[in-house]
């Protein structure tokens, strides 16, 4: 066997689940020749907790502590979608107070902001530039401080309930949000821009890497920053309006390139957009009025038979809940459709062949895979 043939031998490598470059509890079974990946298969199941099965056996209200665990960095989308689906099927959606709709919009946007700060740091952290994640995680912590003030919890909020939210905004919340979070984020963004988008290391490793062809967008149902980085203005907040988003002034951020750099750039722009949206929401939110509708007895509440699919724009893309009720006090079926189900399995596996082994981690971060929403 010649030296060249030896180097070209196909080697199998498990990338994860114990690997600092993997996005959560999953792994990629990869085959490589030299340092080029020839094939990859996504493996999940490391934190399967049978959430969907559990929810079939619980009363509706008991599902809130479960759904928030479907995505750790961004739990609120799950809480909202569960509430929205069951409110729609029960007819309770017509009774959700105006103020609750604004607070839910605020919470979803705060959640998107926190998750995007985390993943923007991850973009460069996965390439070894560790200082930027320190900044972005700190900024994310400021958002979590406000979540703690609002909901009593930093990560799993369990704040959205049927008919509205659990409590009103504390006094002075808007001012603290401005001075303690939004102003600090805005002040830091130029420095982050400089460290990421002006960095020759990041540019060399991100431009032209992990390119997703535009024709895959419809074929595979790609959404979120991944589809917007192709130049396609697709955003659930605009396309399937919900809550108070139709009343807010914002444009869908797009760019071209469809590579890791483009996806990072989209997230950077959407952080600024989220800051602006949170300001708009706090400015326009009514100060008076109820924050939750009068609810039926949650121990005996039944919902008529029906099925629906509701969706919202998470930081990763379209998040959907398919819910079926049968007239009883429990869901017949709840099926969570997270964007990672497509991005982290089918799309990632199609992108892997030809990728350099060192680029696998940045590629996965750029797809923003969240394993618990794959295995629910």
């Amino acid at each position, binding site marked *: 066997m010649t030296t060249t043939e030896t180097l070209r031998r196909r080697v199998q490598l498990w990338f994860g689940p114990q690997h600092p470059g993997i996005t959560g509890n999953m792994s990629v079974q990869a085959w490589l020749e030299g340092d080029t990946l020839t094939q990859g298969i996504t493996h999940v199941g490391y934190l399967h907790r049978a959430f969907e099965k559990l929810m079939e056996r619980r009363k509706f209200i008991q599902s809130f502590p479960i759904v928030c665990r479907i995505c750790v960095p961004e739990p609120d989308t799950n809480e909202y979608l569960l509430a929205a689906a069951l409110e729609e099927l029960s007819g309770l959606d017509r009774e959700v107070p105006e103020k609750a709709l604004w607070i839910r919009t605020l919470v979803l946007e705060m959640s998107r902001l926190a998750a995007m700060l985390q993943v923007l740091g991850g973009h460069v952290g996965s390439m070894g530039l560790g200082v930027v994640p320190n900044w972005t995680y700190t900024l994310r912590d400021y958002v979590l401080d406000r979540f703690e003030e609002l909901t009593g919890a930093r990560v799993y909020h369990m704040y959205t309930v049927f008919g509205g939210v659990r409590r009103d905004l504390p006094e002075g919340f808007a001012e603290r949000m401005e001075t303690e979070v939004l102003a600090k984020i805005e002040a830091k963004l130029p420095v982050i821009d400089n460290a990421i988008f002006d960095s020759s290391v990041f540019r060399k490793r991100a431009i032209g890497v992990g390119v997703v062809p535009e024709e895959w967008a419809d074929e595979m149902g790609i959404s979120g920053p991944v589809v917007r980085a192709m130049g396609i203005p697709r955003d659930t907040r605009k396309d399937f309006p919900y809550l108070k988003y139709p009343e807010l002034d914002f444009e869908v951020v797009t760019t071209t390139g469809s590579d890791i750099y483009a996806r990072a750039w989209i997230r950077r722009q959407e952080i600024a957009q989220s800051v602006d949206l949170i300001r708009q929401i706090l400015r326009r939110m009514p100060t008076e009025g109820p924050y939750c509708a009068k609810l039926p007895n949650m121990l005996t509440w039944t919902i008529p038979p029906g099925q629906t699919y509701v969706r919202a724009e998470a930081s990763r893309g379209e998040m959907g809940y*398919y819910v079926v009720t049968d007239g009883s006090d429990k869901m017949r079926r709840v099926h969570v459709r997270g964007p990672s189900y497509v991005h982290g399995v089918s799309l990632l596996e199609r992108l892997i062949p030809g990728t350099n082994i060192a680029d696998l981690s940045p590629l996965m971060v750029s797809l923003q895979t969240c394993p618990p929403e794959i295995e629910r």
Partner: protein
Amino acid sequence: MKTIIDDIRARFSVEWEHEQRADLAQIGVAPGTVVPLLTWMKLHTPFVQLNHLSVVDWLEDGEFQLTYLLTDPHGHRSLMVCTRIPREEATMESVHELWPQAVTYEQEINEMFGIHFPGSPRQGVPFILEGWDDLPPMRRDFDTVAYMHAHHPSRPGREHVDPRVYVGKVFGERGYLHDDD
């Protein structure tokens, strides 16, 4: 949504229809109609995206319901195509030739409900579970408690220690309890 359902009715047999929202309609068709219908929709209508594929277990009826959610990404509307198949030896035609991501859905459904999709590439390949040899766990007749007792025998509970007694034993009758404070 009325137009697309009328178009479908002109070509295929539709068992029922329901408009859930202005942007979401639902139709029910026979199992044999599903793949021809979805193929026609992908090739000749704006409903080109498969957003979701799900299963509902109607145990009391002896049937599984398969739900395909198709979306028109430019018209911003979705159509739910539902069909029912018998639970016994449940088999359904695959749609992975139409949408590559359907492979993952069909793999998971095969594992969790035991529905077979002949020709789909990863049938029988574990997705979430590992070494599973019982009834597919998302079926409603799967007894989770019995499975748990069979595979995870209960361990004896911890010995209970009353803190008051423990502190009294270590620090004396009054100890640090400050009962009279």
